[in-house]
């Protein structure tokens, strides 16, 4: 990042992994008596957690360091996110898990589902059965039931309660956070984006757990800084840098090497379509329905995760993002052995190339650094091909 501009987060954690800022936030909540609930996935209904007076804490899943320990139990040809998560638990190195008193899990994929069985002995755990044909009429009924059951579990475990009005209030809070977040995203949609992925990542990390009321001063500060950058004519990646949309598996920690390579190669990441990115902020939760639990279920079933079938929303969301952020190319990041994102990549790539005429690159990777050279070559070639002319040949 250019040293001439003030960082969006200018605090004692600037330049450090964003987990540290989040941990400090959660520890301060805990010191004031709050109880923490560990979550692993974007399907965990954080509004319900907040409504019960509890605090969601995203658990560690992105470090290569814990994989070796995990592979003593788990197969090595498993998704690194699952192996890393498990390694953190058995090595007792996840500070968020250490301060969480229960864990919420979902049946998103087979690997996670079976891994959750192995860590169930460490904390009270509640597994939510996620419907995977989200468009079927029963899906909303079933998922609403799962959210109600989660409420019972949390109320029993923590001896607390939430009324419909409490949940409605939490929904309004999340919607406000989503609106503020989208004001920030407007600065990425500019012809010359004024922030890079690392600063966005800092923001995503904190916003996973904090309420919009807690985030309000942060948003005020960040939006003012972004506006100043825009007025000063600042450009994060330099004028004319190729604009990239990144989509696919959640990425953070050691897997963020892909995002680093894109920026180091000269690309500007303008849209980041993943659960660790913009996905949680893509739409509002319906307010004032009279049945806030059902409203939550409806919203969460619209998360375009590859565990859903046929997940047509992945493509419509891609259309929306391409229209808003105008990328020159799309990169699909797939974690090794994540079968659903890996297979879905074919459809996504075809859609991006055929419907939008944009170059598309799929990168399959894990948390090791051993493929950094190969990834750089691919990304360089993709960026070189962004500004090409000429006619197509050989295509169907």
């Amino acid at each position, binding site marked *: 990042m250019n040293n001439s501009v003030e960082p969006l987060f200018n605090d004692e954690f600037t330049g450090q992994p964003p987990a540290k800022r989040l941990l400090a936030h959660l520890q301060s909540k805990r010191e004031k008596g709050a109880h923490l609930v560990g979550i692993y996935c974007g399907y965990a209904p954080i509004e319900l957690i907040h409504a019960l007076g509890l605090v969601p804490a995203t658990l560690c899943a992105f470090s290569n360091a814990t994989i070796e320990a995990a592979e003593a139990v788990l197969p090595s040809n498993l998704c690194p996110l699952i192996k890393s998560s498990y390694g953190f638990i058995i090595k007792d190195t996840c500070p968020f898990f250490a301060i969480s008193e229960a864990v919420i899990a979902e049946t998103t994929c087979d690997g996670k589902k079976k891994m959750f069985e192995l860590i169930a002995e460490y904390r009270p755990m509640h597994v939510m059965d996620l419907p995977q044909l989200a468009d079927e009429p029963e899906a909303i009924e079933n998922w609403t039931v799962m959210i109600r059951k989660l409420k019972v579990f949390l109320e029993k475990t923590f001896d607390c309660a939430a009324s419909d009005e409490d949940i409605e209030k939490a929904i309004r809070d999340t919607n406000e956070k989503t609106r503020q977040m989208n004001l920030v995203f407007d600065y990425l949609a500019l012809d010359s984006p004024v922030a890079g992925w690392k600063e966005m990542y800092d923001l995503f990390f904190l916003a996973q757990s904090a309420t919009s009321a807690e985030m309000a001063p942060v948003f005020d500060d960040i939006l003012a800084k972004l506006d100043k950058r825009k007025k000063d004519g600042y450009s994060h990646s330099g004028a004319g840098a190729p604009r990239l949309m990144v989509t696919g598996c959640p990425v953070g920690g050691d897997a963020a090497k892909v995002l680093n390579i894109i920026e180091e190669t000269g690309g500007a990441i303008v849209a980041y379509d993943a659960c660790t990115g913009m996905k949680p902020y893509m739409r509002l939760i319906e307010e004032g329905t009279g049945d806030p639990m059902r409203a939550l279920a409806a919203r969460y079933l619209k998360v375009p995760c590859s565990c859903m079938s046929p997940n047509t929303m992945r493509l419509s969301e891609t259309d929306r993002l391409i229209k808003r952020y105008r990328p020159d190319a799309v990169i699909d990041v797939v974690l090794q052995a994540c079968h659903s994102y890996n297979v879905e990549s074919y459809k996504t790539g075809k859609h991006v190339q055929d419907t939008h005429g944009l*170059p598309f690159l799929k990168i399959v990777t894990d948390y090791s650094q051993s493929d950094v050279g*190969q990834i750089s070559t*691919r990304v360089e*070639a993709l960026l070189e*091909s962004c500004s090409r002319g000429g006619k197509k040949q050989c295509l169907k």
Partner: protein
Amino acid sequence: MRVAGLDIGSRTIKLVVTGEDGSMVSRKALTSYNPLDTISELCKETRYDVMAATGYGRHLVKGRLDCSVISEIKAFALGAKSLHPTAGLVLDIGGQDIKAILMDESGSVLRFEMNDKCAAGTGRFLEVMALALGYGLEEFSSSALSAARAEEINSMCTVFAESEVISLIAKGALRNEVALGIHKAIVSRSTTLLKRVSPGSCELFFAGGVALNECVRSLIAESLGVTVYTPPDPQIVGAVGAALFAASRQ
């Protein structure tokens, strides 16, 4: 103006220098454990005005030599288009990479696929298999071509395929039939990548050290049913492309 292109590959380093009169000279050396020394040796007594580097070691020389860099993908597309303008697809099988590149009429890259970090089906794979069967590289190809049928090799992993070859030999399989099986395995891997970048068919430009292997060349032509063009020196295509890139920046 004398223009140089340097391709720093995993197994060999290639240097091409073109003169104002259109002449071209090329030199090659094994990459070794110290590519920078190899490059100095290769460039010694070579005069050039501008240079561009490509290959996996391209960033190693940036800042040490006065040169620009381009990715191998672009370099191979540029090189192939200039050496054989009617080609629409490029296949490069090098020491540790396989690249399939679809180009437009001007030689710009439309789509590309590369193998991941595993060396399955690359030049290195062929080297290890030839060694396991006790062949030299040229003899490996001619022996495979002499086989009446092929033993099936199922594993594409260099390590597992070697065990498979050893167990086939232990079962009394004919050496040349195992050799043909290995060649077929590498071809099947390459054609999969090619089909991913181009569902249609167009003339294929075959580059990289493995293009020197006659058996792989004929199996690819047979498998895809397209014309396969192999330049006189398939190893220097990336370096030629880098030189063209260097010249275009002047």
